[in-house]
């Protein structure tokens, strides 16, 4: 068999595995979110379907599928359908560049645990995920509902504002690693936990964290779907599985955000003070451990997002814009320039 066919088969297998994992994970975050929210609030949460409510996502999924498909009379049919379709597609694509583990050896071939190691990895992710705003805008506009439109407009303004801050905060990371490849950025942090970017540039991390919180539309920046004002914002008119598609994509975006934090600022699959390569483990075992470490770190940040959501109140629109433009943007620029100066001196 020719080499490139094997390559294609391997990446097919990786893509398939990824889709299985990510969809299951996103579905279970919905359960996790509800259970954790309940624990924070002295409630029990959904615990009827299966042990500890473990079958709840399945029940929800089936329910969403069995619902009647409603397209409002005044909505623009084509765009109404395009909105969620685009949104979930865009949510899934950035994962092509995220490494979820080191390398393993299968049939004598070294396989990177990553769908593809692009040399423009992070840039690719930012570029793709910024298209996501179209999913929101199209969905909100096509619904022809005032709440949806307001939510969509707020959301667009919010997403584009924080994208700049995020980009500039990331530039400081690229400056240190000298690469845009996700894998190189992780390897640059491998030496010790003190090389993790969170310690190297704490200010950049704070700016990035706040921006990504806003990018994922989570509390305290969930203005697009601020339920006390805008019902649920841009997906007010969506029901059945089209609502679930928006919902699922938001959770996938949440995982993406957590994975980004992990790989950019918390050393990816690196375990503090342990060098997997020197433990004498077989390559495949080390690869497996690296995947678990990466997933645990990502899972922790997903939990942090949930934690924040159920603790904080919500910003108001003008405050959100002021925070983004007047506080975070200057901070990001200062961080970038400061990093450059320090990098020059060291």
């Amino acid at each position, binding site marked *: 068999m020719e080499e490139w066919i094997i390559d294609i088969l391997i990446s097919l297998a990786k893509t398939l595995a990824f889709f299985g994992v990510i969809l299951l994970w996103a579905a279970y975050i919905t359960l996790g979110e509800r259970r954790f*929210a309940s624990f924070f609030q*002295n409630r029990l949460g959904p615990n009827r379907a299966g042990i500890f409510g473990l079958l709840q996502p399945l029940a929800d999924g089936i329910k969403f599928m069995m619902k009647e498909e409603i397209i409002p009379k005044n909505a623009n049919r084509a765009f109404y359908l395009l909105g969620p379709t685009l949104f979930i597609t865009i949510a899934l694509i950035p994962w092509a560049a995220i490494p979820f583990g080191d390398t393993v050896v299968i049939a004598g071939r070294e396989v990177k645990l990553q769908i593809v190691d692009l040399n423009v990895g992070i840039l690719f992710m930012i570029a793709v995920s910024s298209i996501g705003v179209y999913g929101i805008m199209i969905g909100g506009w096509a619904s022809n509902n*005032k709440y949806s439109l307001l939510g969509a407009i707020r959301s667009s303004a919010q997403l584009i504002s924080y994208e700049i801050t995020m980009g500039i905060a990331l530039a400081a990371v690229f400056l240190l690693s000298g690469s845009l490849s996700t894998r190189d950025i992780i390897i640059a942090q491998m030496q010790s936990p003190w090389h993790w970017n969170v310690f190297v540039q704490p200010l950049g991390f704070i700016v990035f964290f706040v921006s990504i919180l806003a990018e994922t539309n989570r509390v305290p920046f969930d203005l697009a779907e601020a339920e*006390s004002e805008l019902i649920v914002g841009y997906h007010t008119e969506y029901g059945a599985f089209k609502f679930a598609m928006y919902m699922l994509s938001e959770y996938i975006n949440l995982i993406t955000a957590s994975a980004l934090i992990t790989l950019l600022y918390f050393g990816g699959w690196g375990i503090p003070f342990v060098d997997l390569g020197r433990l004498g483990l077989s390559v495949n075992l080390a690869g497996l451990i690296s995947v678990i470490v990466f997933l645990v770190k990502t899972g922790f940040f997903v939990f942090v997002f949930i934690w924040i959501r*159920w*603790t904080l*109140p919500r910003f108001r*629109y003008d405050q959100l814009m002021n925070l983004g433009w007047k506080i975070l943007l200057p901070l990001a620029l200062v961080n970038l320039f400061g990093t450059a100066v320090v990098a020059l001196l060291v």
Partner: protein
Amino acid sequence: MAFKEILLNMGPQHPSTHGVLRLKVALDNEVVMKVTPVLGYLHRGMEKLFENRTYQQITPLTDRFDYLAAISNNLGYLLAVEKLMGIEVPKRAQYIRVIFTELQRLASHLAWVGFFANDIGAMSVLLYGFIEREDILEIFEEYSGARLTVHAFRVGGVPTDINDKIIDMINTFILKLPKRIADIETLLTGNRIWKHRTIGVGVISPEDAISLGLTGPSLRSTGIKWDIRKDIPYSSYQDFQFEVPTSANGDLYDRYVLRLEEIKQSMRIIRQALDTLPQGETLTKVPRVLKIAPGEVFHSIEAPKGELGFYIKSNGTDKPERVKMKSPSFINMQSLETMCLGNLFADIVAVLGSLDIVLGEIDK
């Protein structure tokens, strides 16, 4: 071409209009240009209903006005009836009434803190408030059998004396409450986002507040010290030591801090009332069929939401000729537009939440 403002309809089916209120809102780029409340979605014709009920039969109906503070409504109505009849309620009954209305004030304020925080986006606080409220409802259940629409008092006093178990429950509750209030304060009072959302928002001047008839904590937040419990004492409130907290700014944050302070003062009153509970009867003898000589009366009390007044006109039969209710939520609603104009869309929800309205009381 002139810019057209967005006309938005909030409610009756909207998550944060506290029931079935409808607001017609005109927005210009998220800035509120106009707010018009539309009422009547919960209208049950209560005042008309009263004209066909005997004086005793009306009491349980008053629970349904402000269903978050049923006992306060009972008290307001009964005090008006008793004033009209000219009867004196036994001291012990007066103290028991104070204990239960203050507990009701705690329940109402706790629910308010939760709903208000929820309107601003802090969802967990809602449940924290409700856990404590649950204890109060259990006390009510132990006393009267009902939890929400409590029919606790009767014309001439209270139907049953409180027993040791209830006193125990109240004491345990009062010991437990400060910790939970501290939890809520940790989550909200010092929170930067919370302060950003509440300080300087929904401001109303003392002059406006008076001319719009604002009462209750919202009035006191503008710096006007007006509390009927203190200024025109009823049901032995003059026997207790308590402060009437006020603050100067008249914004949402002040209203929030003020209500938490009122919770502390209410606990103080309950503690005093339990300590100095006099012995004796709890119910004056009143005839089974109450016929009140022609006359009219107006009596108001300080309900959790503001001044709650009842006007009753009797005509010598066992049914009133007219009962008119001055409900605090209804009156306070008038200042909504003044507080909202020029603020942002999200502030409408916050201001509405801060006014502590209950639709059962607005639509009657």
